């Protein structure tokens, strides 16, 4: 059926065929990336996210700061009137729960699925002709857009807080004061740390987007994974399981705000998050490269895709649990009577001088107080370890200049993640009043209620 060509081609496009030498030159990844970014930012939902992330936190922090009642149940929320840096940390805490999983769902969870939905896969593959380069560009585009949105959350919340309260010292999680300079560094570092679990969720989004195609489940996968990990963090699980979940870094950045810093859980969390990010991205890549784009009815969803996606991640979880157990030697809940006592005493000893200063009493130092705490759980019945709202601590300290020992009582609610709230239960002169009138201006009593954090893996 070969038809000989009788007329020479006219010109231009069809002018010359060079047998055997016309192999397709690869399209540079940067060009595909540019196209992906154009597509991403043309979608209304991404534009809306950019707007929300860059304006929302600042406006929210500023607005909350104008209120009399502060979100004291949120970490650092009680200090929003004291310093501009607290607002950004409040946003960071909320972002780890809701905003960052949502961002990864909308951006990474849709980056492959949108091509299925629009029927544009073949168009893209014909234009690029390299599945690997397409995958690389889409993954990089997802990370780029996600990073831009995280940066927006961080910058906006910091600016909002600084505009409202300025660059004042921040009270750390163990009660010690961080100067404005220290605070900016640690707040920025905390935002950088949560990039790791955000990357892990983005990678899970890529995996869901590749494996589940146009199914909405692919889009929801990062949200579902984040919700699952948050639920797990609320359960009384062994500390090894808790640390082996990438979502723990959304909590363990707290450790940056203690002195000494609780870096163990934070570094483990970052490491685990990065392992998840790499494995989930590799699985997504593998599934994408194996996909058959000639069959329109097959968008990748199926038992095989799920098997290749879910089972390896379950294996990663098991392996990281084992590695954390061996590496840290940690066991149980990680919350012991000794740790609670030490932590409560430390926080109290740091906050007491602040209260004294507010009340225009002679200056004291934490060292002078020689604070100790005696804590029991369930009135001493049962195991004196683990999370619960039934911890009760008696704090004792030496009153400088009087050579007497004073005591205060706190009801302590310790969550499974190690974070706790100590609620004053007398005497009224120490922790009975919510506010202290200081030069006619009401300021929060730092000893009425305070936050703290138990290091789950360190014995110190």
């Amino acid at each position, binding site marked *: 059926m070969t038809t000989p060509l009788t007329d020479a081609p*006219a010109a*231009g*496009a069809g002018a010359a065929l060079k047998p055997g030498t016309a192999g397709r030159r690869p399209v540079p990844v940067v*060009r595909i990336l540019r196209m992906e970014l154009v597509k991403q930012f*043309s979608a209304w939902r991404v534009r809306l996210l950019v707007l929300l992330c860059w304006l929302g936190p600042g406006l929210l922090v500023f607005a909350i700061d104008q209120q009399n009642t502060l979100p004291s149940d949120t970490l650092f929320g009680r200090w929003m009137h004291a310093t501009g840096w607290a607002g950004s940390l409040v946003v960071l805490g909320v972002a780890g729960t809701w905003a960052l999983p949502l961002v990864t769902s909308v951006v990474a969870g849709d980056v492959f699925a949108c091509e299925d939905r629009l*029927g544009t*896969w*073949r168009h893209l*593959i014909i234009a690029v002709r390299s599945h690997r380069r397409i995958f690389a560009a889409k993954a990089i585009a997802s990370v780029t857009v996600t990073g831009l949105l995280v940066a927006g959350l961080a910058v906006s919340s910091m600016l909002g807080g600084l505009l409202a309260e300025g660059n004042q010292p921040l009270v750390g999680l163990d009660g010690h004061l961080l100067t404005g300079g220290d605070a900016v560094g640690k707040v920025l570092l905390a935002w950088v740390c949560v990039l790791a679990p955000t990357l892990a969720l983005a990678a899970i989004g890529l995996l869901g987007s590749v494996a589940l195609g146009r199914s909405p489940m692919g889009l929801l996968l990062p949200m579902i994974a984040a919700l699952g990990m948050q639920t797990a963090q609320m359960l009384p699980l062994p500390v090894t399981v808790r640390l082996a979940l990438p979502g723990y870094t959304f909590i363990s950045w707290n450790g940056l705000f203690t002195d000494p810093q609780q870096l163990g859980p934070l570094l483990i969390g970052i490491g685990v998050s990065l392992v998840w990010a790499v494995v989930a991205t590799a699985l997504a890549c593998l599934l994408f490269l194996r996909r*058959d784009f000639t069959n329109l009815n097959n968008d990748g969803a199926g038992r095989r895709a799920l098997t290749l996606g879910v089972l390896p991640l379950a294996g990663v979880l098991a392996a990281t649990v084992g590695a954390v157990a061996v590496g840290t030697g940690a066991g149980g809940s990680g919350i012991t009577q000794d740790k609670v006592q030490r932590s409560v005493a430390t926080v109290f000893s740091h906050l007491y001088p602040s209260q004294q200063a507010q009340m225009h009493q002679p200056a004291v130092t934490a060292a002078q107080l020689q604070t100790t705490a005696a804590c029991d759980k369930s009135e001493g019945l049962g195991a004196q370890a683990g999370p619960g709202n039934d911890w009760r601590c008696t704090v004792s300290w030496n009153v400088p200049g009087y050579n007497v020992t004073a005591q205060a009582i706190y009801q302590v609610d310790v969550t499974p993640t190690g974070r706790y709230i100590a609620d004053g239960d007398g005497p009224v002169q120490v922790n009975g009043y919510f506010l202290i009138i200081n030069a006619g201006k009401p300021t929060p009593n730092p000893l009425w209620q305070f936050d703290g954090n138990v290091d789950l893996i360190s014995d110190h």
Partner: protein
Amino acid sequence: MDTTIAVRGHGITKVFGDVVALDHVDVSVAQGQIYGLVGPNGAGKTTLLGLMLGLAVADEGDLEILGTSVGRGLPAPDGVSGFVDGPGLYPTLTAKQNLATLLSLQPDDSLAGDVGDALEQVGLTEAGDQKVRGFSLGMRQRLGLAAALLTKPRLLVLDEPSNGLDPAGKRQVHQVLRRLAAQGVTVVLSSHRMDDLEALCSEVTILAKGHVVFSGPPKKLTDDNHELDYRLRALDPSAAHAVAAATPGVRVVQDSDAVARPDNDVIVVRARTAALDELLARIVRANIPVRELAPVVSPLEAAFLSLTDQPALTGQEADQ
């Protein structure tokens, strides 16, 4: 390798699970030719086009595109463009942005065309700044063609390019394809519209269930002189009916249906070409004014239906 052949396939087989989409298909397309692929749904047209575009590789057989072997580990060469299953367009981008993003994917800027020129060629200049979300199917088809033109292809592979086009749009697309062919660009297209294939293609291949059942110039199909149904509209249909009934080799079909139709001046006759000539001569001799004599389905379509074992439509069904 013969450089005058743009596409050469031998023994191409492609299997999806239990389904044999292409079964030892041979194909050869000369450079500068407009080549048609036709077949019923599931015949393997899209699969064959997909292989040419490098979307998949054949399980068996050899395929050369523009003088280069393609297959597993052997990507399709530069200069191949087109679309299958509709043009892939991003609805949130404008027509110009869609083309510009495609243009940005060209590894070599010298191979890239001009967005404005591509839009002008397909008659979409005025819609260039509109978002594709609001485009009709025909406009999307034309924009898909513009996208393909933008890469200055040497082989253009188009799946149903006339789908959704109005008559003016179809004429414009035909003009573009003919001009490209005249410039030496090879065009391989599939269509369900036999009139498109007859108007454009110098060769067609009919596929059925993954097999080639015909390959050659469309004229070869119509020359085979099959018995066809013709619609005859006369001023005096009763007289025409009588003449037709009396003409050897001519049968009047769908008699009652034709009478029942609103345009009951139409009768449908079934005949070979020679018998039809005789009928026309007799009608003229009988001094019956004839307003229309045309095949109910085109010869190519009739041949297609016959070769692919498709049930032939009656004259009335075809009209509907």
